[in-house]
């Protein structure tokens, strides 16, 4: 622990909602000019711990015990059980908050100036002119271009990254001693994430604010934290300096977390025979679709003249930031969206001509040859029907198993294939975890016995550890059955781990398209380089 006095010290914090304990006796401390990283998987209670410790927890029926003292100037202020008035003077005044989703964290009906100055007015009595000057100074400090204009703007006129910068400006408005950042970069692109990380570090250096940074991403924690607390199931499993945690993890759980992380630079999938033919060849794919905005209809040119091939048994990694059009490619191939131009030849037949004029039977047969797995495990399965019915649907539709018994047997076989007990067949989706549901989705796609399996961000919503097991499953299936994948994602480390070839997309266009090994070793395109650079390195920033 760094020597200087702690700003916030939390001892033996317990939080329970109803009968269910969520935080079970966590103690931690945050020091001036230092950043405490809190890392844990979803459900580990990391946000709950910090919100309870700072008195911002608002869940009805929550029971909080233990102590959390704000110690800096003057005598310590106990926050647990403090009166609403006392908490109000601390919030915004001595503790600033930044939350995850920039989209909803700012009031859409108020100009930015108002949302900054109201915090000042709550804690100090500035004149209008002083408040305006302070707001201007803050926007400049968080690196917003043309702060003068931004003050008069509304949140919807800014990008995600800019809105997050405004949030930080608001949090630091009254020059607080402590800044709480709860997953501040999780909803941002990796490039914007890197900029926000640098910004917070610079502000900490300039203003000497103590920071608590909560995240599920070990890479980000490695870049920002001085000390790290690893939370699992409501208890602090390991608390040490960032170097000790990353280099010399003491607890098995921490070690597993570290190992499960996909890291850029690790080896890719096993090579395939170089005489493997091309399964799918896409030439000049162009997709445009209408969007209705309140002010009138307009069209979005999502994919512009994209060409690529996928070799049989190989995996093509399609990577790009949100809005780059990578999901539209999947939609076009699976017929969910109509392609405006281009050819997609799947082992001899052009998918688009069959779709346009091939007739119902031909199109149905074509659909059996391409499987699809989507991102969100919770909405990929119909909540009202059991797992067996979901997996069984393709069997029924394409008549792949005649009779109930044959179908039941095939379902058990598929479940086993994806590592699930046959007993899962009769369960309902809400009785399964995120990982188990993705496995059921994969089983359903495999039921088609597709030639090509499109995986659109299918592990992005899973915790790191769960993601690792699913990626292992996919690799194993590819090895055993020679499956061909089109793997779509935004996490370069995951892409490197699964892809034989990689295509980088930006605003609908291919920016770089080369075998994975070459691309990761020596990226040619400047955008690819920026993407790679923005990925938080495996080893923490202090490691030498």
């Amino acid at each position, binding site marked *: 622990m760094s020597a200087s006095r702690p700003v916030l010290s939390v001892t033996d914090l317990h939080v329970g909602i109803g009968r269910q304990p969520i935080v079970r006796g966590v103690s931690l401390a945050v020091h001036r000019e230092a950043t405490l990283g809190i890392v844990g998987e979803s459900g580990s209670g990391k946000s709950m711990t910090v919100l309870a410790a700072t008195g*911002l927890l*608002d869940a*009805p029926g929550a029971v909080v015990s233990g102590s959390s003292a704000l110690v800096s100037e003057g005598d310590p202020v106990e926050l647990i059980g403090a009166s*609403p008035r006392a*908490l*109000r*003077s*601390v*919030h*915004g*005044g001595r503790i*600033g*908050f930044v*939350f995850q*989703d920039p*989209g*909803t*964290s*700012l*009031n*859409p*009906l*108020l100009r930015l100036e108002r949302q900054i100055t*109201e*915090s000042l007015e*709550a*804690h100090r009595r500035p004149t209008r002119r002083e408040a305006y000057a302070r707001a201007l100074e803050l926007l400049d400090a968080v690196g917003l271009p043309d702060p003068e204009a931004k003050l008069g703007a*509304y949140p*919807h*006129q800014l990008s995600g990254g800019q809105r997050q910068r405004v*949030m930080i400006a*608001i*949090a630091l*408005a009254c020059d607080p001693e402590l800044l709480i950042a709860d997953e501040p970069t999780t909803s941002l692109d990796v490039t914007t994430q890197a900029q926000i990380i640098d910004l917070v570090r610079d502000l900490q250096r300039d203003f000497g604010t103590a920071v608590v940074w909560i995240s599920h991403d070990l890479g980000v924690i490695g870049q920002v934290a001085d000390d790290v607390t690893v939370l699992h199931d409501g208890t602090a499993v390991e608390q040490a300096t960032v170097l000790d945690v990353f280099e010399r993890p003491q607890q098995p759980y921490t070690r597993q977390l570290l190992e499960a992380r996909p890291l850029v630079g690790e080896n890719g999938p096993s090579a395939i025979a170089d005489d493997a033919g091309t399964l799918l060849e896409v030439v000049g794919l162009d997709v445009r679709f209408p969007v209705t*905005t*309140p*002010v*009138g209809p307009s069209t979005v040119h999502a994919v512009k003249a994209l060409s690529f091939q996928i070799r049989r048994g190989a995996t093509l990694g399609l990577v790009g930031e949100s809005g780059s059009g990578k999901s539209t490619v999947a939609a076009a191939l699976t017929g969910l969206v109509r392609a405006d131009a281009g050819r997609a030849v799947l082992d001899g037949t052009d998918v688009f001509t069959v779709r346009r004029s091939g007739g119902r039977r031909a199109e149905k047969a074509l659909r059996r040859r391409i499987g699809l797995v989507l991102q969100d495990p919770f909405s990929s399965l119909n909540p009202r029907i059991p797992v067996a019915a979901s997996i069984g649907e393709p069997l029924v539709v394409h008549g792949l198993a005649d009779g109930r018994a044959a179908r039941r047997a095939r379902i058990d076989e598929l479940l086993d294939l994806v590592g699930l007990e046959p007993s899962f067949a009769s369960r309902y989706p809400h009785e399964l975890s995120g990982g188990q549901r993705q496995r059921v989705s994969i089983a359903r796609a495999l039921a088609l016995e597709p030639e090509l399996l499109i995986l659109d961000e299918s592990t992005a919503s899973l915790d790191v550890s769960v993601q690792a097991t699913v990626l292992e499953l996919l690799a194993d299936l590819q090895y055993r059955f020679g499956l061909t994948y089109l793997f779509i994602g935004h996490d370069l480390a995951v892409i490197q781990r699964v892809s034989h070839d990689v295509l980088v997309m930006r605003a609908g266009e291919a920016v770089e398209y080369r075998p994975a090994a070459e691309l990761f070793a020596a990226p040619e395109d400047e955008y690819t380089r920026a993407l790679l650079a923005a990925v938080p390195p495996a080893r923490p920033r202090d490691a030498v």
Partner: protein
Amino acid sequence: MTLPAFVSHPVVRFLARRVGYSLVVLIGVLVVVFALVALVPGDPVRIALGTRYTPEAYEALRAASGLDRPLFVQFFSYAGSAMTGDLGVSFRNGEPVAQILLDRLPATVSLAAFGIVVACAIALPAGIWSALHEGRLSDAIVRITSQFGLSIPDFWMGILLIALFSTTLGWLPTSGYRPLFGDPVGWLQHLVLPGLVVGFVAAAILTRYVRSAVLEVADMGYVRTARSKGLPPRVVTFRHTVRNALVPILTVTGIQLATILGGVIVVEVVFAWPGLGRLVYNSVAARDYPVIQGAVLLMAVGFLVINLLVDLLYAVVDPRIRLS
């Protein structure tokens, strides 16, 4: 602001779309209103004349109503003339329908307006209060009362109020209407009871919408941000929660207006209130189809205009449209 700038300004384009949409609906309204009379089994003119039937009166009225021409032509002439305010003549006394409707408009407008004011005066505070105290006793009380309000038949409430406040206590007149400009005190005295009935039912409907709108906004990120700034509860509630809840509430109030206008009919009959509702009721007995047609059209157009105004307010209040 030059014309091209004016035309391309987001609010104008938004409004133009809304006006275009309303015109399409208006045409649909005209078709339905026209179809209403075309559906009459038998010959409407013959039925309406009844005892006063004479061949000349029959021909005169048929010609005046243009019922002798093919259906298609009739519709376009009806729609065209409706646009210019000519809604044909009443079967009962030959007066222009537009004039008859205009005589009745002030009464219905004052009743509906008074009803809306009462509704908002009850629904807004009650809805916001119960949302902010969700799950607690006051929330349950507001929800139950609004359920009661929804379930009470308005004509029954009217009759009981008359029996209590007029016939027994004699505080308020039992029925009738006094024009606002002719006799303002009388106007208000006569308006209290019917207005309360319309207002209470409307309040019951609106309270639920206000409550769910505020509840929905209270879960939003920016409300938590506001609390994280240590703002006083009053500021968090009104500048952030309620202000954002007003946008959906506005749209719903516009839509709910149709049901409120519908309720006015029965209340006008109970209180002998000389408005459009009572006119429709009397016209039904007298089979005065053009007047029924005209009143239905006027109420529907009123609804569309009010919704357009709500859209205008929406565009003004919500910067996401003004500066999209």
